[in-house]
């Protein structure tokens, strides 16, 4: 497995909404090897607090040289990242974990929510590049238009059309991504790829289970190392026991996981 620990230069930092940021980093080692669904561990500063690296999905790569991460400011670590400047360097470990799998012959449907939309851009882009058949169906949800619109823009620039859903109805369907899925005529041979908050992924998993559609999900958990050493990032398995999100995942077949259905 090719993994690297790199000091990478921030070539661009964009503020997409008041609390959502996108950072472009330069590393040909990481960018040229990354696959959709893989992630990097980012050190947010040089000090001892916050201590741990933060995991972020790679949201896209370009020219085999640059890669992007997308994040919302939720604590001290992400706040420090948001205050970085272009030309500064970040310590990165990656690319880590398994990626999404995709089959060009199948109808592909990508479903993302909030910051979970990030790796789906990379996946959608790879599908466009590698598959000559029809482009994937893309369903994206977020709290409101302000948060969702800039994320949809990236897909539109690739020529991909998106079905949007927002919690407040300010853009697209007023409701959940599953409300959109129910209205789509998805073939049973369709392959679903999902990343988003756990309640959303649970709902999409249940939808797919009922329709007997294959579904892969990218799991987010707290993790200290990202490479299978701390054993902190477990996800419960349907057969009992646990898998490690960092090294066995973060992408799993939804059927293999144990879902908390309330």
């Amino acid at each position, binding site marked *: *497995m*090719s*993994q*690297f*620990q790199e000091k990478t230069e921030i070539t661009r930092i964009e503020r997409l909404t008041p609390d959502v940021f996108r950072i472009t980093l330069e590393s040909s080692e990481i960018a040229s090897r990354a696959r959709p669904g893989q992630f990097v561990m980012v*050190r947010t500063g040089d000090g*001892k*607090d*916050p*201590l*741990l*690296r933060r995991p972020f999905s790679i949201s896209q790569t370009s020219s085999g040289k640059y890669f992007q991460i997308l994040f919302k400011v939720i604590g001290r670590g992400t706040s420090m990242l948001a205050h970085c400047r272009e030309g500064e360097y970040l*310590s990165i*470990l990656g690319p880590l974990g398994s990626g999404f799998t995709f089959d060009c012959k199948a109808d592909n449907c990508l479903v993302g929510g909030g910051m979970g939309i990030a790796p789906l851009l990379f996946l959608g882009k790879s599908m466009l590049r590698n598959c000559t058949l029809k482009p994937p169906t893309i369903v994206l949800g977020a709290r409101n238009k302000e948060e969702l619109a800039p994320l949809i823009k990236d897909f539109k620039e690739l020529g991909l059309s998106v079905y949007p859903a927002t919690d407040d109805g300010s853009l697209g369907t007023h409701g959940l991504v599953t409300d959109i899925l129910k209205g789509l005529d998805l073939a049973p041979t369709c392959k679903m790829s999902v990343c988003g908050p756990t309640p959303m992924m649970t709902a999409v998993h249940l939808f797919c289970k009922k329709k007997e559609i294959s579904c892969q999900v990218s799991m987010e*958990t*707290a*993790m*200290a*190392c990202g*490479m*299978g*050493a*701390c*054993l*902190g*990032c*477990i*996800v*419960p398995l349907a057969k*009992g*026991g*646990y898998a490690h999100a960092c*090294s066995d995942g973060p992408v799993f077949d939804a059927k293999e996981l144990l879902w908390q259905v309330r």
Partner: protein
Amino acid sequence: MASSLKADLRVSIGSLKLKNPVMTASGTFGYAKEFEPYVNLHRLGAVVVKGISLEPRAGNPPPRIVETSCGMLNAIGLENVGVERFVKEKMVFLQDVNVPVFVNILGDSIDEYRVIAKRLKDVPGIAGIEVNISCPNVKKGGVAFGTIPEMAALVTAAVKEESSVPVVVKLSPNVSDITVIARAVEDAGADAVSLINTLIGMAIDHKSRRPCIANVIGGLSGPAIKPVALRMVYQVAQAVSIPVIGIGGIETYEDVLEFMLAGATAVQIGTANFINPRASEEAVEGLTRYVVDEKLSSIRDVIGGLILP
């Protein structure tokens, strides 16, 4: 380049000679293979692998870890593959790496420790055993072996009986006087002691009114515990005559030097591996430069060299 500099960094743990005093701490370095992409494993003094029990353990439910100020709290629950799979699957890789391997072992009864030690005896590539006495003694109602001197001594003696390699006993800091436990295991035949294991702590999320980890309480590690670890290493080094291996918040060669000044013969780097997988190798490079720059004949000159007021 530090790697081309020549410096005498050798230290001894019982009959075992290490090329330098930098080891990796159990539970923070996997089975070493995880760190192969980042670290030249053969340059380390030794690696200590994830704690091994008689039977495989699935570990605790999530969440298992949470970050705290300058540290992290964990309750992994001793997840491991069990001694059989460890020997058959994990040792194969370790046997090919030119680095001494310490196997950290744990059990719920003295007999379990004894059986594991017996299974590991004569397995090629194992340089030493580290006995984790912080886990609860199920038969005695969950009292940790590490908190009662007589129990710590019994475990140590049982493992010593079954081992042909040096036996290090890893001490818990969650006791009123760690030197009493250290002396008890020394008397029982331990070749060295390593300390400290994690400090028991807790983190609460006031918004949800819930503990941050599912086990409610967990072990605190990282830079936050370094002053406590230094104090305990300093006290134990004066209480025993066997080598002391310092653990607790060590990240850089400067940290290593501080522990050696306090009396440690060697050290283990733990949580820092998660943040900088190359921390251990970088500490070796730093020590090399230090010995050369300070014109020391050996890193051993530093051990116990603390100048008191």
